[in-house]
């Protein structure tokens, strides 16, 4: 236990890089943070874990000066600190890598790093000095980045490095990372952890905000757990385990691995042969794909993101036309010449949980009940009348909210005001309601908290056992391995191999995702 004892006065041991006492913050009626106490030891990696909406981000935004606490005290290196804006935080040595990067895609790395500390009214001298500092930092922490590269040309992992370098360059010795691996591939995440280790070795204090248990266990020294705006526990990482953390986070017992009975595959629901697609620039993004999915089984599609999973899902959902080959989906054959729309696909018995729920799954400005019928406007969910029946739709939404435990139970709340997990539940509830015969699912638990992950996974298994064929695309290997009956690994738009779920382990899949097939088929 690191920080459970109470401090009574404003004094604090100087070995704490950061100490918070009784920090509270509300937005209107919502109490986002309540009497938060936190002590972070110098030169450690300290994890803060909690579900979406537990108040982690609010707390970090208070630390970084983007929000101001209603009450409470803050100490940095034992000295009382007042942080009124990000400028104050920066000058106190607090740097932050936000979940959504604060980078300007059209600027070069150098320009991004300079922004805010240009070193004079003209840029000339600052450019030289910053480039030099970047190189020093890059060498110290083993993250070399080309200063003249445009950020828009960098991949996500590199962008994150730029963010870290930006914080270090401005003199940060307390670095806050907000959900840093949410956007990274497993390999990039491993690299990030190596960088964090180096930072710690060089005396930087790291605060890692996450909802992923595996990360906490892998990298942190200490961990604090938040639930519903309150701090519910502090642990030394070496003295706890994922199960205990999950229970503290959710406040009840959770199953980290959903039970999955043996699959009973029956008729072929989807059969793909020779499928190919080109991007708008003429690159081949899907190349000669051949596979089948049967009713009552889950086919997992694994791969580093950007290796063809997105276009494949779009083709299957009717959002994109194949350029080559064909596929037979629930008895309908579709080729490059078939005119098909997503609503045709829906009418055919296909459900689609898109990987980007904000872009393709929801209309964020619309109320929950309107989102609950999107794409199903001509079915019974909008009522039996000729016109859409609002009362019926609202009642329908309220029922689904009860069934799927969507919180708050407010059919009139705009979708954007729900947490990520609850937004995803709206999409899942909608797509599952019509009992699809084939369900196409992309990243079902991206940005979703532990409790909701368990729920969504259970739903997918239940649907499979009712005889639905499921195509599951995910970059989370744990998810793929936990749910799939067979796993197809994709690389550069091609199938690397397909193996049975029972044979899969992370090592094997990782190699295949890199394009190395071992000649193993199934």
């Amino acid at each position, binding site marked *: 236990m690191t920080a459970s004892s109470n401090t009574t006065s404003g004094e604090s041991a100087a070995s704490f890089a950061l100490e918070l006492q009784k920090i509270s913050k509300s937005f209107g009626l919502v109490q986002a943070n309540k009497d938060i106490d936190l002590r972070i030891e110098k030169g450690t990696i300290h994890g803060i874990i909690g579900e979406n909406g537990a108040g982690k981000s609010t707390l970090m935004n208070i630390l970084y000066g983007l929000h101001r606490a209603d009450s409470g005290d803050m100490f940095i290196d034992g000295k009382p600190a007042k942080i009124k*804006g*990000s400028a104050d935080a920066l000058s106190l040595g607090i740097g932050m890598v936000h979940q959504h990067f*604060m980078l*300007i895609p*059209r600027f070069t790395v150098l*320009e991004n790093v300079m*922004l805010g500390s240009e070193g004079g*009214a003209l*840029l000339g001298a600052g450019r030289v000095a910053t480039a030099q500092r970047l190189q020093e930092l890059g060498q110290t922490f083993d993250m070399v980045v080309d200063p003249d590269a445009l950020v828009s040309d960098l991949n996500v992992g590199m962008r994150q490095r730029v963010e870290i370098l930006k914080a270090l360059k401005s003199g940060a010795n307390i670095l806050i990372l907000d959900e840093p691996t949410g956007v990274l591939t497993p390999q990039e995440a491993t690299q990030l952890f190596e960088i964090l280790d180096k930072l710690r070795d060089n005396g930087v204090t790291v605060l890692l905000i996450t909802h992923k248990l595996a990360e906490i266990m892998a990298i942190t020294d200490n961990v604090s757990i938040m639930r519903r705006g309150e701090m519910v526990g502090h642990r030394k990482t070496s003295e706890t385990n994922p199960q205990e953390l999950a229970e503290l986070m959710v406040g009840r017992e959770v199953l980290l691995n959903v039970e999955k009975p043996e699959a009973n595959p029956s008729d072929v629901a989807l059969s793909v042969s020779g499928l190919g697609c080109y991007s708008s620039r003429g690159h081949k993004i899907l190349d000669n794909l051949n596979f089948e999915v049967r009713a009552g089984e889950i086919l997992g599609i694994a791969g580093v993101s950007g290796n063809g999973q997105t276009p494949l899902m779009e083709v299957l959902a009717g959002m994109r036309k194949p350029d080559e080959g064909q596929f037979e989906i629930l008895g309908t054959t579709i080729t490059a010449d078939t005119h098909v729309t997503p609503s045709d696909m829906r009418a055919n018995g296909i459900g689609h949980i898109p990987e980007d729920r904000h872009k393709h799954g929801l209309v964020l400005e619309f109320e929950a009940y309107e989102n609950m019928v999107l794409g199903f406007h001509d079915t019974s969910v909008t009522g039996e009348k000729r016109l859409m029946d609002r009362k019926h739709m609202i009642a329908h939404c309220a029922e689904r909210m009860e069934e799927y435990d969507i919180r708050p139970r407010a059919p009139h709340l705009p979708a954007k005001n729900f947490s990520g997990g609850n937004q995803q539940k709206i999409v899942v509830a909608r797509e599952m309601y019509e009992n699809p015969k084939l369900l196409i699912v992309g990243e079902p638990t991206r940005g979703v908290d532990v409790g909701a992950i368990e729920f969504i996974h259970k739903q997918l298994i239940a649907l499979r056992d009712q005889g639905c064929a499921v195509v599951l695309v995910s970059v989370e290997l744990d998810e793929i391995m936990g749910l799939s009956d067979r796993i197809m690994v994709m690389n550069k738009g091609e199938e690397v191999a397909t193996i049975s779920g029972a044979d899969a382990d992370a090592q094997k899949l990782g190699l295949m995702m890199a394009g190395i097939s071992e000649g193993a088929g199934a």
Partner: protein
Amino acid sequence: MIDFFYQILWTLDATLRVATPLILCAMAGIFSERSGIVDISLEGKLLSGAFVAAAIAAVTGSAWLGLFGAIGASVLMSLLHGFATITHRGDQVVSGLAINILASGLTVILGIALFKRGGQTPTLASDERFRPQELWFVDLMDNIPILGPIYRELISGHSLLVYVALLCVPLASFILYRSRFGLRLRAVGEVPIAVDSAGVSVTWLRYRALIVGGVFCGIAGAYLSISHGANFVREMSAGKGYIALAAVIFGNWRPVRAFMACLMFGFLDAITSRLQGVDLPLIGEIPAQLMLALPYILTILLLSGFIGRPSPPAAIGKPYIK
């Protein structure tokens, strides 16, 4: 042949004169839009600048006071736009439109109230205006063939404000790409929250961008009424603010390219008057209306992706909410 050469020189000379307010307004538009604020109020700022310049010059007899008054009025309009869109996060197009309507009505009403000439201001005497100026060595250069006439007819003999406009282009370019202010300005038009998290005030930055724009528009207004013209006439901006905005888009929000677009639009304007009633071989007479509409048609073609691809600042039109 000589005659044709002079025809070209005079057309280009006219191009420069017509393009001057466009160039100034376009630079104003670039500063505003690069900071993320849509600026269709260029037109209104130009018009109010023109009115105040002419009114003050008429009352005080000083062109310089007129110029400063124009800048003041135009900056005031900018601040109004900023108050509505930055401080109160209002819709930028609506606010801009409101300013244009306000300027259009206010200039006429104040004109009638102050001068009782149906909205016009009194005609200014020569020394109350910015008059064309001969540059140095004009007589000396006369002896050089080709270069001499070019220097005398095209380069020399413009009002001070024309040269100011021409200098504004490299100046704007320098500020945008070489200064701290420019870096932050470009950043705030792309990802304002990045600027905020770097500890720089988004609000103050955008206000400053609008103020710079106000200064440019004020000079442009003064040019219209106390340099190019000799008094204020109602609606004398005649859509130039909108054309300048088209030039900004055409120039992909970059000063030098927008300047080229202004010259092109100015050139179209200048040859329109020359081509009136002239039968061109094969084509016949080109209707003046078509020429006047050409800047807009070209802009629409550009926006619909037929000529290159415009890349507006990413955060343009979006109020910044933390």
